[in-house]
């Protein structure tokens, strides 16, 4: 039996090496994407007459010059991380939730509605209740398309996109109407009053802006890792994603699982929205999100739907954003170029995700059948 491995019970060194190369590829591809985007950005920056090396030096300083800047990066990364975790979770089950933006708005709405009340309860409880409100708001907004998909096989991509618009307009209505701050004032902005002091997330690294939302995100990453890769539910959810027919055959309640993952993903987007209000903005404004729910899709893809990968990707996006702002302010790079660089990152991330996806296809559908696992 010389060509059988010595034992089938422990992976051979060669197999482990192949696995390791595979994970290396998973990590390297996104970094390649970022590098490619930076090169494209450099060319664009040069075209505007700015020295790209100078611009990128400012960008780097913006990210790491001081503790303050590092804190900013983490603050920017926080909502992306929390939404991305939920999206990775739902994508693993083969449900394509494009509705994080709407779920974020609905969560922020309910969370803020609780946070602005003077409940006379201790601060930790007020924060917890507000976050719970955020989860419920976002979760309900995920429940609807989840149910429609699971029960009636209605395409979730379409329903979630449509629900995004509805959510944004609902928040508009509340910030212009029932929840408007000081509605009688002449120049009242479409925003709610400030949240109560008791519901604000504490700053945890003064003098930086870093608030308790970031460690909350880290904790959630750990929880989702455990659920997805250590708990039975995660196995079932992933089985539903990779092979619905096999999941049904195995007696899994595929409908219920799809609904649960949609609620969790929507709920986490809602929590992210609430965290953004309680930790940074302190009031809910009309149109307050710059597309966080969409960026988080790219983050989940880049992180390969794995909680720790999503953490890295969120940090990277946070850094790019803070760095780009600095580059704009100090190197005079037009703001549109900064937007283009960010969009290019997303584009290349999507491309690299496609490459990886093709590499994971059954070998028969590939042209080059290299062994990598």
């Amino acid at each position: 039996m010389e060509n059988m491995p010595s034992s089938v019970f422990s992976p051979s060194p060669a197999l482990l090496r192949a696995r390791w190369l595979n994970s290396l590829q998973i990590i390297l591809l996104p970094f390649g994407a970022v590098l490619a985007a930076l090169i494209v950005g450099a060319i664009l920056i040069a075209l505007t007459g700015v020295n790209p090396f100078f611009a990128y030096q400012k960008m780097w300083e913006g990210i790491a010059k001081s503790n303050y800047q590092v804190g900013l990066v983490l603050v920017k990364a926080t909502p992306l991380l929390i939404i991305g975790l939920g999206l990775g979770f739902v994508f693993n089950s083969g449900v394509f939730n494009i509705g994080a933006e709407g779920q974020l708005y609905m969560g922020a709405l309910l969370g803020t509605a609780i946070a602005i009340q003077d409940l006379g309860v201790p601060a930790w409880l007020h924060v917890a209740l507000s976050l719970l409100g955020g989860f419920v708001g976002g979760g309900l907004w995920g429940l609807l398309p989840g149910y429609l998909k699971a029960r009636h096989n209605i395409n979730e991509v379409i329903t979630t996109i449509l629900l995004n618009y509805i959510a944004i307009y609902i928040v508009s209505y509340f910030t212009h109407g029932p929840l408007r701050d000081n509605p009688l004032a002449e120049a009242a902005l479409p925003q709610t009053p400030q949240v109560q002091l008791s519901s604000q997330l504490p700053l945890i690294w003064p003098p930086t802006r870093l608030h308790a939302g970031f460690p909350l995100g880290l904790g959630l990453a750990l929880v989702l890792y455990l659920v997805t890769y250590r708990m039975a539910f995660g196995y079932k959810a992933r089985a539903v994603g990779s092979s619905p027919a096999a999941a049904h055959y195995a007696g899994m309640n595929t409908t219920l699982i799809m609904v649960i993952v949609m609620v969790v993903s929507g709920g986490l987007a809602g929590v992210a929205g609430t965290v953004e209000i309680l930790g940074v903005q302190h009031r809910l404004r009309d149109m307050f999100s710059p597309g966080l729910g969409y960026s988080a899709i790219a983050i989940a893809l880049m992180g390969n739907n794995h909680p720790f990968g999503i953490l890295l990707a969120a940090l990277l996006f946070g850094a790019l954003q803070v760095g780009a702002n600095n580059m704009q302010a100090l190197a005079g790079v037009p703001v549109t170029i900064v937007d283009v660089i960010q969009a290019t990152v997303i584009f290349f991330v999507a491309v690299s995700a496609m490459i990886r996806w093709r590499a994971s296809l059954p070998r028969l559908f590939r042209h080059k059948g290299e062994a990598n696992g």
Partner: protein
Amino acid sequence: MMPAPLLEMRQIVKTFGSLRANDRVDFEVRSGEIHALLGENGAGKTTLMNILYGLYQPDSGEIFWKGEKIVLHSPRDAIRHRIGMIHQHLMLVPNFTVLENILVGLPSPQEPLLPIQETLARLKDFAAQYGLPIDPTLKVKQLPLGLQQRVEILKALFRGADLLILDEPTAVLSPLEVEDFFAVLRNLVDKGVSIIFISHKLDEVLRISDRITVLRQGKRVGTIETRQATQPILAEMMVGRAVALDHGFPKGGAAQPLLELKGVSLIRPKVGRVLKDINLTLHSGEILGIAGIDGNGQEELADVICGLIPYSEGQMLLEGRPIPNPTPRKMKAAGLGYVPADRQRVGLVKNFSIAHNLVLKSFDDPPFNRHGFLREKVVHLNAQQVVEAFDIRAAALSQPVGELSGGNQQKVILGRELKLATRLLVAVHPTRGLDVGATESVRQFLHAQKEKGIGILLISADLDELLAMSDRIAVLFRGEILGIVPGEAASLPAISRMMLGERLEAIA
């Protein structure tokens, strides 16, 4: 001097991690022959053919085609050289029609328009020329497997093929379909097509092939003229020692009724009645065979019993107690194991490891689950046991199941389901794709379970298997049971006629 062979593969090596799937294999095909490729599960047959079709690149070795050295980077190269392949698992788009499936990837003279009229005309030609009639407007998912296979062959012929690779084409065909299929093969050979034929059924290989090459654990054992081969010689070449080939099993021993179907019907929207008024009793300690040409309701019957599809009318009883709404969970809890027909899509989650596939139905149950967490150690131990008991050949327990050879995938399903079947087993083509040795041990295992009092519903296209194993055999035709006969050789003529639609009463 012999003329140069059509194909010569020299010293082909292919490794996956530390596993040598092909180890310096020489293989040659002469023009106009049917060359059979034999070997145990995991011997490397599919791998060698995937190399020939450009799907895998060999680590080393050379391929000579029509006397010239060629390098195949992709199936496109193979197709350009007029090499066609039909895979172990058919690769058609179920929701497309026959015509659409043939059109996929076909070059068109009037791009971007599809050559629909030309294709229809050529289809007619092919049908007449090779004896391959088919209705191009039907959706592939409505076709029985035998016809789906015909679509695959037509697809390959459309792309032009001087050499056709057929990986286990007869695994799920009933004997009658096999006859048709062999007639088609002979026809193809007459028209100048050479054929590589992979099968685990030695009698078929002996009947249809001109020469036979045997692989064992990645190495070529030898090539012999079929005239000089016998089943025992081939079996010994494959396994390395003499093997006992199939013999009958003692019959009888049925006790009280275990599972009863009373007037069960299944009505599917748009399709109609797929099962009609099924009355069937399976006793404990009995093997009840279900015969029929594939696509006559066998899979639906299995799915209904196992709770995957709710039945529309009638009643199902387990040990006398009605089960109004069977679900996969309930039936598993009642001690049912189910080996489904579609192992790739239904039976396994291909990107999960062997170990996790072995607990696919038990994620929620002790001892694998504690407080919602999966106990990887226990899962691993369980996998060790099953892998050993069923001789599953793999590089590691953590290997994704999709990377296993076809027969080893089947063994993973068997390993899981036979354990779950503490009262009742529904097995569809349980030995499909298994080599002679594995087939024998699965049959022995089934028989041992029966002796322990388990009731087994054995659905198979293989009449020899049904006759060897079953106490009684029911024949399904268009969703109806046309008769039930004893499981003995004397029943064969009646079974064959019922499979074509005659009722038992009419025959007797």
